[in-house]
């Protein structure tokens, strides 16, 4: 348990993993059940369409307003937090962020870290970084804890262990904690509670994420159901919050609609059990709470997305997970297939800015563009539109102006040439007629194999007569009557 072996390397590429996932009945059942129930819960939480749409519009405006003033708001946040006694740090890369976190822990000679749920710390792979330096970094959200015990990564941003069923969890607890196997979920949670409570008590440092950072008051807002977030931010003598620079909002009242959108979209709950607003460390006269509070603001590609007015909308995201819950692709292949920290539709639009599009070249096209994600997104990110944009970026030639980090991975000279010819063909009537004449006469010569298309479809064959031809006949006949 104390020795952490590196997370199992994901093998193959997206396509290969997707194929494997599609063949895994257990996995597919686990996801199907979970996603169906999350979709129903969300729908039930928004019974009034008008109310929902009004709130989504407001959510979108709040985020757009915050982004339109982002640098000023970040400075304001820093000023307020500093006044409140919170230390603010800035990191451009995950390495930098890890160094900062490690530095704080080292100064306190900390050896044990407990973590509340934080996707940014997943981006940083903080657990591995700290483990490599002799510091135990333990996840305390039940789902994250389970995933960490099994040396896995979360497969969903809200429900990290959703790919596992109770038998798999029971076996895991048996193997790692020596607990007797059980089918009772309550008993499994009790086992987790006991194991982790000791860790909360002994921890030198608590790490958490942030849901909203409020510039007006210098407040970090965290939502959760379990209480592990409160434990991590209250019990240890030091609290380090890590977050992306896009999480800042202007005013305290802005969080009222965002909070409602977040918990209803994510879990169908009117509110989470705990909403934790942290505005400073323990005051000298107080009896508990951390003596030191730090906030690490991470860029990691976000400024790249920000630079492009269209892709900037990606930064509206409040990480509710609704887009993945409603995604027909995600539901079938599961979160691990994406091979990155953020799976599903939000992953497809945010990951390229973090790791470069060349690392995830298949992601933009792993979508039917059905539009469900954009329809449910509580802050109205036009995800399908952004996916189309990324598809274009994916095939940009080296001479073209790149719109995203490491675009053009799928650029192919021959493909570009074919499209160019196709364009010419369709914009010149003379050539087009000649082409039609040939295509209908020599239709038997069309190739039987046309790339991946013909793996699952029969090859298209031109008709004996073109539509053009038929229409001409038809009109002639009408004229003759």
């Amino acid at each position, binding site marked *: 348990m104390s020795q952490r072996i590196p997370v199992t390397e994901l093998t193959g590429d997206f396509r290969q993993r997707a194929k494997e996932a599609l063949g895994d009945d257990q996995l597919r059942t686990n996801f199907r059940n979970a996603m169906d129930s999350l979709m129903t819960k969300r729908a039930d939480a928004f019974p009034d369409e008008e109310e929902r749409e009004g709130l989504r519009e407001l959510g979108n*405006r709040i985020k757009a307003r915050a982004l339109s003033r982002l640098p000023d708001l970040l400075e304001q946040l820093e000023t307020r937090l500093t006044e409140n006694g919170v230390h603010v740090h800035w990191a451009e890369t995950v390495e930098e962020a890890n160094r900062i976190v490690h530095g704080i822990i080292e100064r306190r000679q900390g050896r044990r870290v407990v973590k509340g749920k934080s996707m940014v710390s997943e981006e940083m792979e903080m657990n591995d970084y700290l483990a490599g330096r002799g510091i135990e970094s333990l996840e305390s959200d039940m789902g994250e804890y389970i995933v960490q015990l099994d040396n896995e990564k979360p497969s969903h941003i809200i429900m990290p262990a959703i790919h596992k069923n109770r038998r798999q969890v029971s076996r895991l607890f048996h193997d790692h904690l020596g607990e007797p196997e059980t089918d009772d979920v309550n008993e499994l949670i009790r086992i987790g*509670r006991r194991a982790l409570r000791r860790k909360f008590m002994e921890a030198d440092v608590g790490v958490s994420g942030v849901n909203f950072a409020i510039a007006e008051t210098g407040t970090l807002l965290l939502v959760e159901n*379990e209480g592990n977030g409160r434990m991590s931010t*209250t019990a240890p003598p030091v609290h380090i919050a890590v977050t992306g620079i896009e999480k800042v909002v*202007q005013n305290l009242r802005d969080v009222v609609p965002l909070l409602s959108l977040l918990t209803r979209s994510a879990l169908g709950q009117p509110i989470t059990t705990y909403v*934790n607003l942290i505005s400073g460390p323990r005051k000298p006269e107080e009896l508990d709470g951390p003596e030191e509070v730090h906030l690490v603001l991470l860029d990691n590609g976000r400024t790249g997305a920000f*630079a492009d007015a269209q892709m*900037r909308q990606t930064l509206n995201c409040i990480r509710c997970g609704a887009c993945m819950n409603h995604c027909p692709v995600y539901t079938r292949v599961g979160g691990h297939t994406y091979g990155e920290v953020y799976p599903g539709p939000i992953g497809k639009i945010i990951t390229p800015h973090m790791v470069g599009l060349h690392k995830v070249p298949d992601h933009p096209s792993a979508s039917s563009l059905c539009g469900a994600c954009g329809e449910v997104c509580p802050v109205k990110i036009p995800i399908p539109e952004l996916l189309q944009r990324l598809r274009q970026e994916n095939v940009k030639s080296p001479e073209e102006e790149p719109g995203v980090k490491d675009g053009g991975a799928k650029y192919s000279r021959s493909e570009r040439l074919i499209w160019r010819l196709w364009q010419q063909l369709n914009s010149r009537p003379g050539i087009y007629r000649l082409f039609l004449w040939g295509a209908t006469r020599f239709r038997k010569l069309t190739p039987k194999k046309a790339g991946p298309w013909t793996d699952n479809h029969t090859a298209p064959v031109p008709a004996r007569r073109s539509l053009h031809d038929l229409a001409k006949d038809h009109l002639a006949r009408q004229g003759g009557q």
Partner: protein
Amino acid sequence: MNARNNILNKLRAGLSGATPRPDDFDERLVTEPWQYAPEDRIGRLRSLMEAVHTEVHTVGSKDWPKTVAGILSRRNLNNLLYAPETDHGKQLGEHWQATEPTIELVAYDRPVEEWKDTLFWGVDASITGTVGGIAATGSLVLWPDRHEPRLMSLLPPLHIALLRASQVEDNLYTMMQRHNWSSGLPTNALLISGPSKTADIEQVLAYGAHGPKELVVLVIEDE
């Protein structure tokens, strides 16, 4: 501070020529759907909280300590963590002195470091006040302070919270306005809407994940 400047410069470059969007926050969207007649507020709060496994009792402002003693003895609990310096803490202390129940009152009167073990493992229940409640979402609002520290509502398996009926607001927005939150928040403010829970295994709901397994709300009717 290089990272800071680089990030801010990149963001400013991205915004060059753009004007900041106006603040067009429409408060009706977060208030109008969530308004209740004063006499319905408690009912709404109660039904939402009960739906997430919370026990809600209506009590009198004089005799609630008796209800507390009853709740504890029904569960066979041995001790209760309380805040002796608060008004409700004093009232509770007096009741205890007068009736001498076998349940021990434990005062949260020293820094957590001095008795972490006891706090984490040895306390059965706690009682705290609240600064109010929210009808729209079925939430309690707590502002822990020197006298009633943060961990009181988190560590014990049973948390009993006192709520004055007159301090229940319609929604979070009106709560923030009424108490002017934007001009000063405590080090830690909390909304609590039920006992700790998780659905991380197969989406099966289980209570008492890391915080209290049980939450009991005593609604004090004002005379």
